[in-house]
């Protein structure tokens, strides 16, 4: 395999990492795509968000009922962790198996609960999807978010039945989806119609399994956050012990809560939808919004069997989807190929390209959810379990929509958010936020020569996607700016970065 060009390496990094930098581009060129992936799969894990929160004292009593520290620990990892592929997959998983900090209710230490959830996703990012399902299904944050923590069995006196929330969403969103799929992700049709995967009775059946789980406070209390990273415990007296029937199978009566959960997840996991349903979404998060059925099929086949008979090997799935010809080969790049970069990744891409740091280690970027003034998106702050955007979102009144094509990230894109983003980045690029500031030492020496300056930015941030016409437009404008003082050179760098990051040719990753 020939050495990838720098633009090709940067394009690969837009799919496989939290963002390119000169150094990372050089590593991809040195190792090749597969070698780089293997190195990332083998890389040691960066420190946990949880440990950072502890180190910074966020377990102090004053933070008990706050979210403080969470945004900082999340951004810090996204921007600085060397295991960049693991961070990218963790972020993708956080948008499939969604938890949001605002819904971590019923206990103190919301900051730690959110951190624990991201750490847990990261534990399994290169692991096995069945293990991931098991882990989230007993995780305290998920128990809080989808309200099965504290669920009780049917109460014959009050008539109360088990809470159905998790039973529904674990099937609809985290494993099989609503309609029967072929292995290539297309709908299985019967007389021309899609077939639903489950009905109301399946939900009430499965809901019986998710009873009896509660925080594990053994030897501890709510005065420290520790219980939030322990798997939940079964309280036998609250667990429904009768049989539970769903998806045409039955979890037999009399099993312990833990065994019933295992049996139920095995039933769900055996469904042929899991591989195409999850594979397609991972492709959408990393590579392109409308993968061909053949591409989905190739990745789903590896999901179903990694070559050693194992289903759900995420490392193999990730490697396959990134090395697939449809991800790597330019001949697949049609006018509808690619994806809108999600706002969080734009910020982190800039930060990684220009060595953004926080001298005090405070990482005070904060919650960036406000669309009118910030990014309209922030880590683990989806408004609902349906993520910031749906995988099937077709933007109305759009060229994509006319072709019936999805563009999930456009669900966040509107007249307020397009402006809020540029205004926010303009400020961030020039002033930083708190002490979170960039190091433009790689750009300032180029600032007197606008052509070289733009070539460098275009390559690292945009994988060379800005065409000559747009580059000419920006160059013409930069050339009218003074270049005689350090402040003037800074302004040239700021203006060039702002214009590139506002350009649609950058915003859509091809």
């Amino acid at each position: 395999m020939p050495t990838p060009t720098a633009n090709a390496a940067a394009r690969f990094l837009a799919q496989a990492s939290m963002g390119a930098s000169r150094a990372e581009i050089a590593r991809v060129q040195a190792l090749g795509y597969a070698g780089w992936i293997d190195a990332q799969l083998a890389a040691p894990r960066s420190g946990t968000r949880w440990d950072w929160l502890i180190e910074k004292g966020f377990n102090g009593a004053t933070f008990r009922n706050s979210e403080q520290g969470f945004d900082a620990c999340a951004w810090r990892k996204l921007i600085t962790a060397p295991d960049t592929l693991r961070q990218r997959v963790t972020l993708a998983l956080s948008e499939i198996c969604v938890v949001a900090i605002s819904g971590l209710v019923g206990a103190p230490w919301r900051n730690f609960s959110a951190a624990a959830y991201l750490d847990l996703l990261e534990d399994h990012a290169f692991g096995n999807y069945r293990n991931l399902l098991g882990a989230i299904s007993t995780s305290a944050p998920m128990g809080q978010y989808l309200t099965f923590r504290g669920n009780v069995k049917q109460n014959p006196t009050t008539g109360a039945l088990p809470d159905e929330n998790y039973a529904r969403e674990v099937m609809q969103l985290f494993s099989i989806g609503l309609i029967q799929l072929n292995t290539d992700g297309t709908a299985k049709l019967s007389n021309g119609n899609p077939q639903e995967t489950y009905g109301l009775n399946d939900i009430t059946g499965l809901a019986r399994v998710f009873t009896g789980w509660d925080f594990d406070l053994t030897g501890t209390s709510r005065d420290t956050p520790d219980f939030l990273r322990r798997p939940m415990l079964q309280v036998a007296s609250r667990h429904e012990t009768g049989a539970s029937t769903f998806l045409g199978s039955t979890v037999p009566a009399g099993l312990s809560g833990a065994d019933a959960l295992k049996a139920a997840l095995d039933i769900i996991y055996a469904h042929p939808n899991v591989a195409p349903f999850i594979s397609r979404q991972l492709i959408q998060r990393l590579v392109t919004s409308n993968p061909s059925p053949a591409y989905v099929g190739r990745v789903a086949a590896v999901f179903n069997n990694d070559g050693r008979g194992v289903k759900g090997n995420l490392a193999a799935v990730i490697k396959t989807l990134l090395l697939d010809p449809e991800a790597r080969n330019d001949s697949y790049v049609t006018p509808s190929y690619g994806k809108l970069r999600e706002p969080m990744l734009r910020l982190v891409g800039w930060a990684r390209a220009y060595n953004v740091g926080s001298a005090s280690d405070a990482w005070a970027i904060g919650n960036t959810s406000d669309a009118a003034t910030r990014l309209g998106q922030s880590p683990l702050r989806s408004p609902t379990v349906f993520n910031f955007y749906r995988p099937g979102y077709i933007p109305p009144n759009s060229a994509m929509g006319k072709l019936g094509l999805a563009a999930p990230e456009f669900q966040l894109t509107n007249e307020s958010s397009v402006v809020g983003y540029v205004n926010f980045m303009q400020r961030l690029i020039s002033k930083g936020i708190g002490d979170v500031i960039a190091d433009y030492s790689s750009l300032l020496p180029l600032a007197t020569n606008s052509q070289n300056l733009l070539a460098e930015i275009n390559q690292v941030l945009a994988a060379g996607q800005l065409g000559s016409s747009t580059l000419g437009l920006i160059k013409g404008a930069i050339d009218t700016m003074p270049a005689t003082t350090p402040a003037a050179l800074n302004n040239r760098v700021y203006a060039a970065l702002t214009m590139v990051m506002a350009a649609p040719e950058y915003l859509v990753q091809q």
Partner: protein
Amino acid sequence: MTTDISRRAFLQRASALAISGAASPLAINLAAMAEASAANASDYKAIVCVFLYGGNDYANTLVPYDAASYNSYYSLRPNLAYQRSALSGTVLSTASAPVDVNGVAHQYALAPELAPLLPIFNAGKMGVLLNVGTLVQPTTKLQFTNKSVPLPSKLFSHNDQQSEWQSSMPEGATTGWGGTLGDLFASGNGNATFTCVNVSGNAVFLAGRQAVQYQVSTNGSVPFAALQKPLFGSATCSNALQTLMTQAQPNLMQSDYARITQRAIAANDVLTSALGSSTSLTTPYPANNNLADQLKMVARMIAAAPALGAKRQVFFVSMGGFDTHDGLVTVHPGLMKTVAEAMAAFYQSTVELGVSNQVTTFTASDFGRTLSGNNDGSDHGWGSMHFMLGGAVKGARYYGTAPVVATNGPDDVGQGRLLPTTSIAQYAATLGSWMGVSNSDLLTMLPSLANFNASSRNLGFL
């Protein structure tokens, strides 16, 4: 009804366009309808959809109050039920009581936290729609059980039922009935951009085939800093920025993105000026209430409607948090309070602006919820109760059919999930008709409406 689209003009226009071959049949259809509608809409009218995301718990919103129904309600959700005594201040009194399928009369009370809406109801400016939900056609319980008639797809699923409410289709729809109203009326508005306005994000409800929803923040349109002030001191850079952000590209998503930016820039200039020159509101709005902030922005835009040349507008605001599987007793009353205070303030500001008879506000939500609870919440349901507010609403009364309060009753499809007896299409048709859409165009706007008896398509609340 103030407008009646001329069938003959419509056909003449359509055939003229067909000969020219200038547009697809559908575009012809809509262009012609829009022209005809615009011709007659000289007055101002707006509808405002208040969407309660998550699926509002109907039983603790409009609480059964007559002794028999209350007792059933209480026995089915003892952990979640209001005490009957807590409801005495918000009992709805009406000239005639709504009856259920068995002919039994019902009485209801608003959740106590909805008290700010009670004076509006009593003044005859608010109506209640009973057991409304997504339906393909009138459906009996037997038909539901036997699956012998088409049902809305993906029942009980949040995203799909939100989409069914807004667009008559599950997720993936690209046009909603609010947007179709926009298609019909945009050309009669001075500036088509402000026909369909969303203050809460993107919603398929407001997307038409031509009409594009305009998203505005609670503080108005957001200006590009770099277009207000030279970008890092360079006006040339500001100009270049505007050009590169808005120019068409071969990649479709790039062009789609650029089009949204174009709209943002164009709309900001117009809207900022119109808002600045319009009456400012004195009606007090509740603090720390995002729904109220959104509705206040709607009121400000309605005040600016003359400056914008708007004759027909469709607004969308929303609030989340209604998915009360858990902690219903703790959470739901606060949600009700937020909704009621926001909607009452908005109604008052339409009175202040002298347009209360021209603005109709209505609630919507993914679905209703179960009546029999889980331990501390309720689960996804189907039919629900909704409110219509405004001077044009024939209020202080109920519409639709009261559901029997029972599990395994005639209206129950499981744990008190209501089988709707009134469809969204009828709800939407009544609003559309008031806006001036002809009966035939309502059938185009709402594909399932034809499955309902012609005499039942307009619910009569306007």
